[in-house]
Each structure stands twice: as C-alpha cells, then as structure tokens.
C-alpha cells in the first residue's frame, strides 16, 4: 500500500479492530518500518491494554491536540520491538477537541517531521464524529470484517463513507474466519464477502484462541514466541502492506478422495 496514514475501521464494534491495529503495527515495525499506532477511541481506550503498555501512559492524544505536551512526551515507545510507538487515547477528558482538522495536522507532523514510515489509526466503532476524525488524515484504510451478516452490512456503509471522504486505498481484512464452518456452508466465505463488498483483500485471519491469551498478558501475538495461525497471518498482512506478494492461507485443509469428489460435483467447499 502506498498510504502511510492508514485507518483501521469496521463500523461495527467488537470485530477485532484494536487487535488488528496492535498486531499489524508491531509486525510492520518488525519489518523495519518506524510505526506509530494511534488510539482515537476517546473514552473507551483499549489499544494500550491490548499492547500491554497501559502502565506507561502519562500523556494522551487530547493532551497533544490541546497543546498540553509535546508529541514526543506523549508517544510511548514499545521496548519489545524497535521503532514501534503508541499514542494512547484519553480515557476521561472531554473529546470536544478531537477535531478532524487538528488531528490531520498531528498525523502530518508524525510523518513529515518525526519521520514515521507508517501511522496506523485505530478508529472507534460507529460512523459518528470519532470515526470521521480517525479517517480524516488517512490515505488508506484496513476494513476489518467478521464473516457475519451485521458486520458485512456495517462494513459496506463504512466503505461508502471512506470513499466519500476521499480515503482511497482501502483493503479488506476478514477476521475470525472458521474454516470448518465455511466448509460446512454455515459461514460466509472470504470469496462471498469480497464479492459483496467489492474491496481488494489483504488478509484472512482465522479464529484463534491465541488472541485471547495474548490479550490476557498484554502481548500482541506477533511478538510472542509461540507460533499462532493469527500471528502468522498478521505478519503476512504487514508484508502485503509493504508490497510483497505473500500467498493467502489455505483454509481448505481438508484433502483426500472424498473432498475432491465433492468438489468435482460442485458440492461444499
């Protein structure tokens, strides 16, 4: 992706925006980029806990926007990986100052003056002002969707709003897919979702218990030693964002005579 300022968004809440932001941010840093992840979910801040940096929050986004501190004072450096920084949201302060214009200037400052290669913006759920602000500085978006009717519907709305506000380089991440259910025909497939939303795919993240474990301990899966399916795919997404051609995971692990016969006759996948 050419976009350096990327908003991670979904419309619907609870689909995995924050986890996606934390992991792709960390994975991009592991690839050598200087990355800032920004939490715009003022009042419901969570990116800090998902990343395990909650104990180090002193200043926040609102302090920066209102000029109470310098950008460098608010940025929390992640000590586990080189060149990864978090700008946390405010949990208690009034979000009136969360102005799209000012926020755009903040992100521009990070890229142009602080030499960040990539800024990932964790958008709040919904389509209100919080989302509008989060999307304002973005040149591209990662639209996170679960294989579920309500999530796909909301994603469609978000895609329309992104395009209307000039965010152009938009890619789809299908999160929490369960290969078994897809094969059984009880879950929308990645192809179905791509066809309905008409957006280029950049990631297919399987449902993975490792995610909850990593949130429990505050360590993004990509930074953990144990290999997880989700962690592998988040690292692959980072590489795809950087323009590498990385094949998508093959979720159709079922093999053998029976399934090839079924496929031959156009049965389930």
């Amino acid at each position: 992706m050419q976009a350096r300022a990327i908003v991670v968004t979904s419309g619907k809440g609870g689909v995995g925006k924050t986890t996606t932001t934390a992991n792709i941010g960390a994975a991009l840093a592991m690839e050598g980029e200087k990355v800032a992840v920004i939490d715009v979910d003022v009042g419901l801040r969570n990116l800090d806990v998902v990343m395990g940096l909650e104990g180090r929050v002193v200043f926040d986004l609102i302090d920066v926007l209102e000029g109470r501190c310098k950008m460098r004072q608010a940025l929390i450096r992640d000590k586990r990986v080189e060149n990864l920084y978090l700008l946390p949201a405010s949990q208690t302060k009034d979000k009136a100052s969360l102005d799209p214009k000012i926020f755009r200037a903040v992100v521009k400052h990070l890229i142009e003056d602080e030499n960040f290669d990539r800024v990932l913006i964790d958008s709040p759920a919904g389509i209100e002002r919080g989302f509008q602000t989060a999307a304002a500085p973005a040149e591209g978006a990662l639209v996170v969707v679960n294989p579920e009717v309500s999530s796909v519907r909301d994603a469609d709305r978000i895609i329309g709003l992104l395009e209307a506000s000039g965010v152009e380089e938009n890619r789809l991440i299908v999160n929490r897919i369960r290969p078994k259910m897809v094969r059984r025909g009880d879950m929308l497939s990645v192809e179905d979702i791509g066809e309905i939303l008409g957006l280029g795919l950049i990631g297919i993240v399987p449902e993975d218990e490792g995610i909850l474990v990593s949130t429990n301990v505050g360590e993004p899966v990509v930074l953990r030693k144990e290999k997880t399916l989700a962690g592998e795919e988040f690292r692959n997404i980072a590489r795809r964002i950087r323009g590498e051609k990385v094949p998508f995971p093959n979720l159709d692990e079922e093999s053998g005579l029976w399934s090839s016969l079924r496929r031959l006759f156009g049965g389930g996948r």
Partner: protein
Amino acid sequence: MFWWRRKKSKDKAKERLQLVLAYDRAKLAPGQMEALKEDLLAVLARYFPADAKKVEIEFEQRGERVVLIADIPIRQ
C-alpha cells in the same frame, strides 16, 4: 447443489445481505418504497387501471447489478 443437501445457511446469509445492501446503497429510508409505489400507481392510473393491492416493488440482485422490480397486475 444436490437436491438432498439442505440449503446452506451461508447462502441465506448472502441473499439477505445482498438485499439489505441494495436498500442501504440506494439510501432509501423506510417508507420511501411505499411512497414510490403510491407515485407509480398515480402515474399508471392515467394509462390503465392497475390492481393497487397486488402491486409489488422491490430490489433484486441480478448478477453484479441490483435492479428495481415492479410487478404490476392489470385490473381486468
């Protein structure tokens, strides 16, 4: 699909999504479809008598495109 295979729930999900998105994308508020129906009937009445109670107007997915279908029985 084989006839003995039960209808997959994901096919149902896809159909429902395509329909609901057709309305979302057209930015039609609830009730506007009814208003459109009234307007159509008023115009049609100038040419031939339509059976108002049986008129059906809806969006339908046709491959890539969404089309507006109006099913208008003529009163005989």
